């Protein structure tokens, strides 16, 4: 639904009257701020925006948005959002979730919402730790991670969330970070614009239980060397001076010096190319084990029919064929008999 108000809204209009209760210094503050500042630009009336969350630190998010919102139960936000969207496809629905909420207890719902391609936006706050329960390892914590519940190191292989989304048939797969706000705002806008389920993973620093988990990618001294910002149609270059680049030898990515090749010979990002996009999601090794950078931006985007459109189309189809339902006819059924006297 298009915005109809004359006076343009600002980020402040999207801030609720509730005190924000995350720990001081939490990465969630930045994400909240970026979401609030993007909202006026997406062209949707405040009354038509709904934030749905599960359980966890990030899931307090809806309370702080001056829109419609629901803080539901652990892992189930995709289910709630699916019902909401099926009931009213005109709404702009945002799912706020974390690595435990989306990938552990709610893993089943995440893969199914992705395959159905319900038109909603999932913001997955990944901090590689359980924050609200005070510091146990999560399904994205690296092997060996020492936490309260893994004093000898975690033995669980972590999920690669974007490869998982790929496998589930996701149609919009992207990654951003709490500390690159401009880039994040662009991805939030792109998530909204995508017609289908958008999965935006956001690296978010938990400064209390997992401080610095992503500093390699977010902090000045290491970011340039380790982060590749992908742009559709552009060669994959990175480094402080864009001195590094990726090229493809067949389907094998190679790390090269930018100057050694003309741009045309480098890997040009095509976010609609399923095979190459999948290769990008595989660049997931820890920086200590690889020279390859961690990609950020939109990995993959595909236009595929939206679930709720299918629901509505079948209703329209049924009404075109059988006419709008007549309750008396339905109650009567096909075989009746009469008792007189």
């Amino acid at each position, binding site marked *: 639904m298009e915005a109809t108000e004359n006076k343009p809204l600002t980020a402040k209009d999207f801030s609720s009257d509730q005190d924000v209760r995350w720990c001081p210094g939490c990465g969630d503050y930045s994400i909240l701020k970026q979401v609030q500042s993007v909202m006026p630009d997406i062209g949707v009336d405040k009354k038509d925006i709904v934030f749905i969350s599960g359980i966890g630190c990030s899931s307090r998010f809806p309370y702080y948005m001056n829109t419609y919102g629901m803080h539901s139960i652990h892992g189930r936000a995709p289910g709630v959002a699916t019902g909401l969207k099926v009931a009213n496809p005109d709404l702009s629905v945002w799912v706020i979730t974390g690595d435990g909420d989306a990938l552990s207890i709610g893993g089943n719902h995440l893969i199914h919402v992705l395959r159905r391609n319900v038109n909603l936006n999932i913001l997955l706050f990944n901090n590689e730790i359980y924050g609200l329960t005070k510091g146990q390892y999560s399904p994205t914590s690296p092997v060996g991670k020492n936490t309260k519940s893994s004093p000898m190191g975690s033995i669980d292989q972590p999920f690669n969330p974007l490869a998982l989304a790929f496998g589930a048939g996701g149609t919009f797969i992207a990654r951003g970070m709490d500390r690159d706000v401009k880039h994040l705002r662009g991805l939030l806008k792109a998530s909204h614009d995508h017609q289908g389920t958008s999965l935006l993973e956001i690296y978010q620093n938990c400064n209390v239980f997992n401080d610095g988990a992503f500093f390699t990618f977010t902090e000045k001294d290491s970011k340039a060397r380790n982060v590749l910002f992908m742009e559709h149609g552009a060669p994959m270059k990175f480094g402080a001076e864009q001195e590094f680049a990726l090229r493809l030898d067949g389907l094998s990515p190679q790390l090269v010096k930018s100057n050694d090749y003309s741009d045309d010979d480098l890997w040009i990002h095509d976010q609609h190319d399923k095979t190459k996009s999948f290769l990008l999601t595989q660049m997931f090794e820890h920086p200590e084990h690889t020279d390859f950078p961690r990609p950020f931006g939109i990995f993959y985007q595909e236009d595929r029919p939206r679930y709720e459109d299918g629901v509505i189309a079948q209703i329209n189809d*049924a009404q075109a064929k059988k006419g709008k339902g007549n309750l008396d006819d339905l109650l009567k059924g096909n075989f009746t008999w009469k008792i007189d006297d």
Partner: protein
Amino acid sequence: MEIIDKKDITVLIAGDSGDGMQLTGSQLTQTSALFGNDISTFPNFPAEIRAPQGTVAGVSGFQLKFSSEKLYTPGDSCDVLVAMNAAALKANINKLKSGGELIVNIEGFDKKNLRLAGIDSDQHPLESKEIEDFNLIKLEVTKLTREVLKESALGQKEKDRCKNMFVLGYLYWMYSRDTESTVQFLKEKFGGKPDVLEANLKVLNAGYHFGDTNEEFTSRFKVEKAKLDEGEYRSITGNHAAALGLISASVKSDLELVYGSYPITPASDILHELSKHKNFGVKTIQAEDEIAAICAAIGASFAGSLAVTASSGPGIALKGEAIGLQAILELPMVIVNVQRGGPSTGLPTKTEQADLLQAFYGRNGECPVPILAATTPKDCFYMAFEAARIALEHMTPVFFLSDGYIANGAEPWAYPTEASLPNITPQFASGDGTNYLPYKRDDNLVRKWAIPGQEGFEHRIGGLEKEHETGNVSYDPENHEFMVKTRAEKVEKIADHIPLQDIDAGKPSGRILVLGWGSTYGAIKTAVRACLDEGIDVSHAQIKYLSPFPKNLKTVLESYDQILIPEMNDGQLIKIIRSQFGIDAEPLNKIQGLPFTSSEIINKIKSLA
């Protein structure tokens, strides 16, 4: 040929679960209903789709009673048993009345079938002494079917699949019924497969004419039309009725029906039925699991739809946390539980009433939810509608309890018109939203429903305890206690908006009250009537509103010297009656995956009288 008039006839058709026994039974039911008999059915089948052939575990049965008088049960025993094989005979012979008709397919009694049924070949059941008690009719169904279809292009397997039509045709002849409605049914079912349609029609007719031309048969039977109340009737099963009740509630509330469900026996037929009626704007979501199913319904209720989820006991267990969320959100929802034998996977295709305490208490925290139960197949229509009315007008999830017995059973129904059903009027928030408080309540303690898309009413709700009126998150101790009590009181106040408890039969006070709930209605009613006829001082009340109870229930209970509570569980309502009213009662429990027979209840009443 002689045609003998009978008041009623109970037929039990039994065979392998792949033999088409359920279809044969439901066709005989439909035809008898259309003829004008009162009917009551009891389909009884194994959990396996193709259970081991020829074994007792694989026997699928369909019991139908059709009558010239009003019926309340499918009968304690049968006048006619059709046994397609030895296992079917072994499993059901004890239900056949002495002197009854025993129709057997003798091809199902060869050595192999006897072995599969666990019968010694030197004790052939059709040659036993006990069998002389019955009027034995032997048919060679497979041979006759193949003979009829010898020129058909169908394969042997497909031909043999028509043999249930031979039996059906024969039964139509025997009970003086015409084949017309089955012919129509087959035309619809096999319209796209002319070969199969032709074969089925041929075999059906052959079965009918077999009776006509075979000189062995000397008599036919006839059951006159029943003197039911004046009106237009159709036949309906409980699950079908529940689906129609939900669609009716959607029409009468002017809200879209959104149904979130995960397939489970014996509730799936509601999903099947609803998904046929998308032209009513019905939206069905087959979710990835039980939890997603109810969560989709939660989302739909937030969006302002009539939200419904349905399951059976195991699925309801999975939905527990989400039911608690819906209760604290104070949004409307109908939760259907078509109960089956438990615990765990239990007896998936058999009936039980053992989820009553789950409905009352099966959630974390203080979480009362209104509970309704249907008494008969057609009552599923009215109680599903009632569940939706209470949910929408009182902003709460509501349990509607059915069970496998009435969900699959059928009876005639003088169906209502749209105009005769009451309107359902949910209280939506109105105005510009300036002073909207999401948890401000009216006299019934019901909050106003504001839905996304309504300008000025933007608000947040969630599973954390909320502050009175504002709905803001609150950990205040006094507020929590206040909100827990307020939510409970809201549910209690629904008692002002439901009918008082009535006495179904007998005097309003006296010696014994038989108190039932849900699907035990027919068996208790039949039993109490029989006892009243014998001059026993006994009455019958059947509870349909279980939480809150009707306001006069305590007075009703106190009007009798003794209360008998028959339940298809190990004593659940009785616990609630004891704890809520401090009134003791005598239990009668049956936990066999089978409904009560009326004689079981009669015997118990007599032991107390």
